[in-house]
């Protein structure tokens, strides 16, 4: 199997993404959405997608190089456009948060409908500590605080299962939003301003040459996403990943074979919130403000839908789904409120056609060639 089909597909996807990001008129955007809705099933039918997958699996180095090249080309092409750079950085940071959720309910089966609250913990950490503490440390503290706040939830989550555990996280998400809304020290309903990121003297809000300043956040976002990706993948390809799967699939059977169910749920929940907190801290520095309205139940659902759309437990599915979920509604601005209708229909159609998600999680290979 040659690397050619894989590289060709990555190039085609990058080209499609470029057209999509560049499209100005609604007719163009809708045309491109329609092209994908019709084209992808056709490609799957003729076996092209399966060929792409086997080709990429057989040539991981080529796959990685092509992905990096495609990403670099996209950044170069749109380097001075604020909107596109903001979108790319958002996709990268949401990927970090959703990789955290993947640990939680993709692997350990611990549902979390309060993702936005943990983003919020990170965001408010940035707002409060930003002016006083070095920002690399702020990111870390944002993650740690999210993990710490999450530990409040661990006891009720361990004592409940399924819908009940889900409901507890829903309630916590609402609780968090109300808490920041009535808390004047945290700016109340208006929220707080957040200083732009400064990493070791590098001021991210001042642009490099003719790049959009958001490009700086794209670089930082990609670095964080790459680190989160590697960690999640390594975790999955280890005995820890096996334990998490065993806990998700059958708690009783896991316990009978010595697996400490509570320990692994706590680990997954805490690590997942840590990732989400870091993402929230970085995101707030990029957008320059935090407010309760950015951390609603609806925002938590967006995180969950990214994980489900990408494919539960699928690390590659996360950035792809984040791209679709974040960018498509933005490009449909002119349809105003109808854009959510169209976007929701798109998600439903995708999940009907592919209930296992866009990129189904492959079987665990501990040490792939």
């Amino acid at each position, binding site marked *: 199997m040659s690397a050619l089909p894989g590289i060709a597909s990555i190039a085609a996807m990058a080209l499609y993404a470029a057209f999509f990001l560049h499209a100005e008129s609604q007719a163009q955007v809708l045309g491109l959405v329609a092209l994908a809705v019709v084209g992808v099933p056709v490609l799957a039918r003729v076996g092209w997608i399966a060929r792409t997958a086997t080709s990429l699996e057989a040539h991981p180095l080529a796959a990685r190089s092509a992905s990096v090249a495609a990403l670099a080309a996209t950044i170069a092409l749109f380097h001075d456009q604020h909107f596109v750079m903001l979108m790319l950085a958002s996709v990268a940071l949401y990927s970090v948060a959703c990789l955290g959720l993947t640990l939680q309910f993709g692997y350990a089966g611990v549902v979390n409908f309060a993702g936005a609250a943990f983003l919020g913990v990170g965001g408010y950490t940035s707002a409060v500590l930003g002016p006083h503490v070095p920002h690399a440390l702020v990111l870390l503290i944002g993650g740690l605080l999210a993990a710490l706040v999450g530990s409040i939830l661990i006891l009720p989550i361990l004592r409940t299962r399924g819908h009940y555990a889900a409901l507890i996280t829903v309630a916590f998400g609402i609780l968090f939003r109300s808490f920041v809304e009535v808390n004047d020290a945290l700016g109340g309903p208006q929220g707080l301003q957040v200083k732009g990121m400064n990493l070791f003297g590098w001021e991210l809000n001042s642009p490099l040459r003719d790049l959009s300043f958001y490009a700086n956040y794209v670089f930082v976002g990609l670095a964080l996403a790459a680190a989160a990706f590697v960690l999640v993948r390594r975790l999955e390809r280890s005995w*820890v990943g096996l334990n998490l799967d065993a806990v998700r699939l059958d708690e009783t059977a896991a316990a*009978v074979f010595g697996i400490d169910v509570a320990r692994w749920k706590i680990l997954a929940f805490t690590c997942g919130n840590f990732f989400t907190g870091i993402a929230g801290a970085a995101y707030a520095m990029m957008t320059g403000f935090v407010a309760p309205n950015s951390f609603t139940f609806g925002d938590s659902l967006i995180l969950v839908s990214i994980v489900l759309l990408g494919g539960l437990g699928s690390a590659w599915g996360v950035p792809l789904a984040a791209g679709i979920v974040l960018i498509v509604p933005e490009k449909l601005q002119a349809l105003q409120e109808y854009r959510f209708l169209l976007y929701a229909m798109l998600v439903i159609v995708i999940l009907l056609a592919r209930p296992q998600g866009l990129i189904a999680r492959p079987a665990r290979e*501990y040490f792939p060639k």
Partner: protein
Amino acid sequence: MSEALLCCSGLSVRFGGLVALDALDLEVGSGAILGLIGPNGSGKTTLFNVITGVYRAAGGRAQFSGQDLAGMTPQRIYAAGVTRTFQRSRLALPLSVFDNVMIGNHRRLHHGLWFNLFRRSELRREFESNLAKARALVATFSARLAGRMFDAAGAFSMIDRRRIEICRALVSEPRLLLLDEPSAGMTHEETRELMDDLLAVRSRLPGLSIVIIEHEMNVIERVCERCAVLNYGRKIAEGSYAQVAADRQVQIAYLGTE
């Protein structure tokens, strides 16, 4: 008689008003194979659930090689050397054969986060030695299965799934193996094959004690030296298969009076 490996005395389990096990006395010696029979609802699986720590006893004692099992978590009971299979196979169907067997090998693996994330070359050695071990174990049951270690368990037939389950229970080299109706859902031919496998395991591991719940009487007759009969949570007979089969009370329990 040598010291019993598993010793239950006066063991009782209640679910609300229902008495699932009623002052049960039972001993399993080292290296013995005990058949456990009885009509549906007579408390056989409940006994397994108490021994493995899934249920808690309401009264009486269960001792495993001198340790009191009451108050021990399922995890500690596993670490002490008790493993089991389930009546309705509880494999992790989306996971591979290897993954399923490794779930049973929990106490032999390193689970530290740092080790698993950053000491990948050591993890790799551990992975490779365990893969060889799992493959060899599975191969004693089926060479074909051993050639498909990374296929999902859900892709296999009932008998292969049962084999995977038994390998999951055996891989950690337990001292007591509890088999909950291994022939459930299988044809006569498959059952016979599986029993051949079990007898082969038995001859390789003479120290292993086995308790086997079965409805197929020819399985019990062929595999077990001794068997106990439960009815409504009580032991109504114990002895060799021939003795038990001739017992009047057992005939009543199975066939009704008349």
